[in-house]
Protein backbone atom coordinates (compact mmCIF):
# COMPACT_ATOMS: atom_id res chain seq x y z
CA UNK A 1 0.00 0.00 0.00
CA UNK A 2 1.37 3.46 -0.80
CA UNK A 3 2.49 5.70 1.98
CA UNK A 4 0.71 8.99 2.65
CA UNK A 5 1.20 11.99 4.91
CA UNK A 6 -1.69 13.88 6.48
CA UNK A 7 -0.69 17.45 7.37
CA UNK A 8 -3.48 18.45 9.72
CA UNK A 9 -4.11 21.87 11.23
CA UNK A 10 -6.53 21.74 14.16
CA UNK A 11 -8.30 24.61 15.85
CA UNK A 12 -6.47 26.01 18.91
CA UNK A 13 -8.21 24.09 21.70
CA UNK A 14 -7.62 22.77 25.20
CA UNK A 15 -5.64 19.57 25.59
CA UNK A 16 -8.57 17.11 26.13
CA UNK A 17 -10.45 18.47 23.12
CA UNK A 18 -7.36 18.25 20.88
CA UNK A 19 -6.80 14.68 22.09
CA UNK A 20 -10.43 13.84 21.25
CA UNK A 21 -10.11 15.34 17.75
CA UNK A 22 -6.90 13.38 17.08
CA UNK A 23 -8.51 10.18 18.36
CA UNK A 24 -11.47 10.76 16.02
CA UNK A 25 -9.13 11.21 13.05
CA UNK A 26 -7.11 8.08 13.82
CA UNK A 27 -10.31 6.06 14.26
CA UNK A 28 -11.60 7.32 10.92
CA UNK A 29 -8.33 6.28 9.29
CA UNK A 30 -8.37 2.80 10.87
CA UNK A 31 -12.04 2.38 9.96
CA UNK A 32 -11.07 2.84 6.30
CA UNK A 33 -8.40 0.19 6.55
CA UNK A 34 -5.36 2.42 6.88
CA UNK A 35 -2.28 1.53 8.94
CA UNK A 36 -1.17 4.53 10.96
CA UNK A 37 2.58 4.52 11.20
CA UNK A 38 3.39 7.65 13.18
CA UNK A 39 1.75 10.75 14.63
CA UNK A 40 3.87 13.85 15.20
CA UNK A 41 2.98 17.06 16.98
CA UNK A 42 4.60 20.05 15.30
CA UNK A 43 3.38 22.37 18.04
CA UNK A 44 0.71 25.00 18.39
CA UNK A 45 1.65 28.17 16.58
CA UNK A 46 0.29 31.27 14.91
CA UNK A 47 -1.08 30.51 11.49
CA UNK A 48 0.87 32.21 8.66
CA UNK A 49 -2.34 33.94 7.53
CA UNK A 50 -5.88 34.05 8.91
CA UNK A 51 -7.92 31.07 7.73
CA UNK A 52 -11.71 31.15 7.63
CA UNK A 53 -13.23 27.72 8.15
CA UNK A 54 -16.66 26.58 9.41
CA UNK A 55 -17.64 30.24 9.93
CA UNK A 56 -14.72 30.99 12.29
CA UNK A 57 -11.68 33.13 11.45
CA UNK A 58 -8.69 31.25 12.91
CA UNK A 59 -5.38 32.85 13.81
CA UNK A 60 -3.82 30.09 15.91
CA UNK A 61 -3.68 26.36 15.23
CA UNK A 62 -2.19 23.05 16.29
CA UNK A 63 -0.07 21.36 13.62
CA UNK A 64 -0.07 17.54 13.44
CA UNK A 65 1.49 15.10 11.02
CA UNK A 66 0.07 11.60 10.40
CA UNK A 67 2.20 9.06 8.58
CA UNK A 68 0.07 6.19 7.25
CA UNK A 69 -0.28 3.47 4.65
CA UNK A 70 -3.62 3.28 2.86
CA UNK A 71 -5.30 2.24 -0.34
CA UNK A 72 -5.64 5.14 -2.83
CA UNK A 73 -9.43 4.60 -2.99
CA UNK A 74 -9.73 5.65 0.66
CA UNK A 75 -8.18 9.11 0.26
CA UNK A 76 -11.18 11.00 -1.17
CA UNK A 77 -13.54 9.68 1.51
CA UNK A 78 -10.97 10.53 4.20
CA UNK A 79 -10.60 14.11 2.93
CA UNK A 80 -14.39 14.45 2.80
CA UNK A 81 -14.63 13.29 6.43
CA UNK A 82 -11.95 15.77 7.51
CA UNK A 83 -13.58 18.66 5.67
CA UNK A 84 -16.79 18.03 7.58
CA UNK A 85 -15.07 17.97 11.00
CA UNK A 86 -15.56 21.38 12.62
CA UNK A 87 -12.36 21.18 14.67
CA UNK A 88 -10.17 20.80 11.58
CA UNK A 89 -8.88 24.02 9.99
CA UNK A 90 -6.92 22.62 7.04
CA UNK A 91 -6.54 18.95 6.14
CA UNK A 92 -4.14 17.91 3.39
CA UNK A 93 -3.14 14.43 2.30
CA UNK A 94 0.10 14.15 0.37
CA UNK A 95 2.18 11.32 -0.93
CA UNK A 96 5.12 10.56 1.33
CA UNK A 97 8.34 11.87 -0.20
CA UNK A 98 11.38 9.91 0.99
CA UNK A 99 14.71 11.76 1.00
CA UNK A 100 16.12 11.27 -2.52
CA UNK A 101 19.20 9.05 -2.71
CA UNK A 102 19.96 10.37 -6.22
CA UNK A 103 23.14 12.38 -6.33
CA UNK A 104 22.83 15.98 -7.46
CA UNK A 105 24.79 16.40 -10.72
CA UNK A 106 25.88 19.96 -9.92
CA UNK A 107 26.10 22.92 -12.27
CA UNK A 108 27.72 22.46 -15.65
CA UNK A 109 29.94 24.99 -17.40
CA UNK A 110 27.15 26.34 -19.63
CA UNK A 111 24.98 27.35 -16.63
CA UNK A 112 27.97 28.90 -14.84
CA UNK A 113 28.87 30.93 -17.93
CA UNK A 114 25.27 32.13 -18.13
CA UNK A 115 25.31 33.13 -14.43
CA UNK A 116 28.50 35.14 -14.89
CA UNK A 117 27.03 36.83 -17.94
CA UNK A 118 23.93 37.87 -15.98
CA UNK A 119 26.04 39.29 -13.15
Amino acid at each position, binding site marked *: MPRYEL*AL*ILKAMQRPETAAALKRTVEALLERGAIVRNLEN*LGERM*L*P*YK*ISKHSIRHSR*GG*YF*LFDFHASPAVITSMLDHLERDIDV*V*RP*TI*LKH*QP*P*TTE*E*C*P*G*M*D*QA*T*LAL*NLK*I*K
Partner: protein
Amino acid sequence: MNSFASSRCLLRLSLKYREVPGLCQKGISTHHENTDAKDMPDLTENPYKEPPVRCILCDAHVDYKNIQLLSQFVSPYSGCIYGRRITGLCEKKQREISKAIKKAQQLGFMPVTLKDPLFIKDPNICNIRHPE
Protein backbone atom coordinates in the same frame (compact mmCIF):
# COMPACT_ATOMS: atom_id res chain seq x y z
CA MET B 1 33.73 12.57 -45.58
CA ASN B 2 31.68 9.47 -46.54
CA SER B 3 28.34 11.01 -45.63
CA PHE B 4 27.21 12.46 -49.00
CA ALA B 5 23.78 11.25 -50.04
CA SER B 6 23.13 12.56 -53.51
CA SER B 7 24.88 14.35 -56.33
CA ARG B 8 22.79 17.48 -55.63
CA CYS B 9 24.60 17.90 -52.29
CA LEU B 10 27.96 17.66 -54.00
CA LEU B 11 27.15 20.44 -56.48
CA ARG B 12 26.45 22.86 -53.61
CA LEU B 13 29.79 22.16 -51.96
CA SER B 14 32.32 24.90 -51.41
CA LEU B 15 35.48 25.06 -53.47
CA LYS B 16 37.69 23.32 -50.93
CA TYR B 17 35.77 20.03 -51.10
CA ARG B 18 36.16 19.81 -54.89
CA GLU B 19 39.88 20.14 -54.56
CA VAL B 20 40.27 17.29 -52.01
CA PRO B 21 41.89 14.33 -53.70
CA GLY B 22 39.93 11.10 -53.68
CA LEU B 23 36.53 12.76 -54.20
CA CYS B 24 34.68 13.00 -57.49
CA GLN B 25 32.12 15.72 -58.20
CA LYS B 26 29.31 13.38 -59.15
CA GLY B 27 28.46 10.20 -57.31
CA ILE B 28 29.46 8.96 -53.90
CA SER B 29 33.13 9.01 -53.09
CA THR B 30 35.01 5.75 -52.81
CA HIS B 31 37.69 7.24 -50.61
CA HIS B 32 37.55 5.68 -47.13
CA GLU B 33 39.61 7.04 -44.30
CA ASN B 34 42.18 4.72 -42.81
CA THR B 35 41.11 4.47 -39.14
CA ASP B 36 43.58 1.75 -38.25
CA ALA B 37 46.61 4.08 -38.37
CA LYS B 38 48.52 4.45 -35.14
CA ASP B 39 48.67 8.24 -35.35
CA MET B 40 44.89 8.60 -34.82
CA PRO B 41 44.01 10.40 -31.56
CA ASP B 42 42.68 8.20 -28.77
CA LEU B 43 39.47 9.71 -27.45
CA THR B 44 39.60 9.26 -23.67
CA GLU B 45 37.99 11.39 -20.91
CA ASN B 46 39.37 14.88 -20.63
CA PRO B 47 42.02 14.58 -17.84
CA TYR B 48 41.81 18.30 -17.13
CA LYS B 49 38.05 18.27 -16.65
CA GLU B 50 37.01 20.35 -13.64
CA PRO B 51 34.71 18.75 -11.06
CA PRO B 52 31.10 19.99 -11.38
CA VAL B 53 30.35 23.04 -9.24
CA ARG B 54 27.94 22.10 -6.44
CA CYS B 55 25.37 24.57 -5.18
CA ILE B 56 24.79 25.13 -1.44
CA LEU B 57 21.87 22.71 -1.35
CA CYS B 58 23.36 19.89 -3.38
CA ASP B 59 22.73 16.63 -1.48
CA ALA B 60 20.51 18.41 1.07
CA HIS B 61 16.92 17.20 1.50
CA VAL B 62 14.36 19.90 0.80
CA ASP B 63 11.10 19.53 2.77
CA TYR B 64 7.95 21.67 2.77
CA LYS B 65 7.90 21.47 6.58
CA ASN B 66 11.33 23.10 6.91
CA ILE B 67 10.05 26.66 6.57
CA GLN B 68 13.19 28.24 8.02
CA LEU B 69 15.21 26.91 5.08
CA LEU B 70 12.52 27.87 2.57
CA SER B 71 12.21 31.40 4.01
CA GLN B 72 15.87 32.06 3.21
CA PHE B 73 15.00 32.07 -0.52
CA VAL B 74 12.09 34.47 -0.17
CA SER B 75 12.03 38.29 -0.18
CA PRO B 76 11.46 39.84 3.27
CA TYR B 77 9.40 42.67 1.76
CA SER B 78 7.01 40.98 -0.63
CA GLY B 79 7.46 37.29 0.09
CA CYS B 80 8.24 36.53 -3.55
CA ILE B 81 10.52 33.61 -4.38
CA TYR B 82 13.96 34.63 -5.65
CA GLY B 83 15.03 33.42 -9.06
CA ARG B 84 18.06 31.27 -9.80
CA ARG B 85 20.28 34.22 -10.68
CA ILE B 86 19.82 35.45 -7.10
CA THR B 87 19.80 32.20 -5.15
CA GLY B 88 22.69 30.64 -7.09
CA LEU B 89 21.19 27.15 -6.88
CA CYS B 90 21.36 24.47 -9.52
CA GLU B 91 18.29 23.82 -11.69
CA LYS B 92 17.15 20.75 -9.74
CA LYS B 93 17.34 22.35 -6.28
CA GLN B 94 15.80 25.65 -7.44
CA ARG B 95 12.78 23.75 -8.74
CA GLU B 96 12.54 21.70 -5.55
CA ILE B 97 12.68 24.83 -3.39
CA SER B 98 10.05 26.62 -5.48
CA LYS B 99 7.70 23.64 -5.36
CA ALA B 100 8.23 23.22 -1.60
CA ILE B 101 7.53 26.93 -0.97
CA LYS B 102 4.29 26.83 -2.97
CA LYS B 103 3.26 23.64 -1.18
CA ALA B 104 4.04 25.06 2.27
CA GLN B 105 2.10 28.23 1.44
CA GLN B 106 -0.95 26.29 0.38
CA LEU B 107 -0.90 23.89 3.31
CA GLY B 108 -0.82 26.71 5.85
CA PHE B 109 2.80 26.35 6.98
CA MET B 110 4.37 29.42 5.39
CA PRO B 111 3.06 32.94 4.75
CA VAL B 112 2.56 34.11 1.18
CA THR B 113 2.85 37.90 1.00
CA LEU B 114 5.59 38.27 3.57
CA LYS B 115 8.51 36.48 5.17
CA ASP B 116 7.85 34.91 8.57
CA PRO B 117 8.99 37.53 11.16
CA LEU B 118 10.88 34.87 13.13
CA PHE B 119 13.24 34.33 10.21
CA ILE B 120 13.88 37.91 9.06
CA LYS B 121 17.14 38.11 11.06
CA ASP B 122 18.48 34.92 9.43
CA PRO B 123 21.83 35.21 7.58
CA ASN B 124 21.46 36.21 3.94
CA ILE B 125 22.61 33.41 1.59
CA CYS B 126 21.18 34.88 -1.59
CA ASN B 127 23.08 37.18 -3.90
CA ILE B 128 20.98 40.22 -3.01
CA ARG B 129 21.69 43.26 -0.91
CA HIS B 130 18.85 44.74 1.07
CA PRO B 131 18.94 48.46 1.92
CA GLU B 132 19.49 49.07 5.65
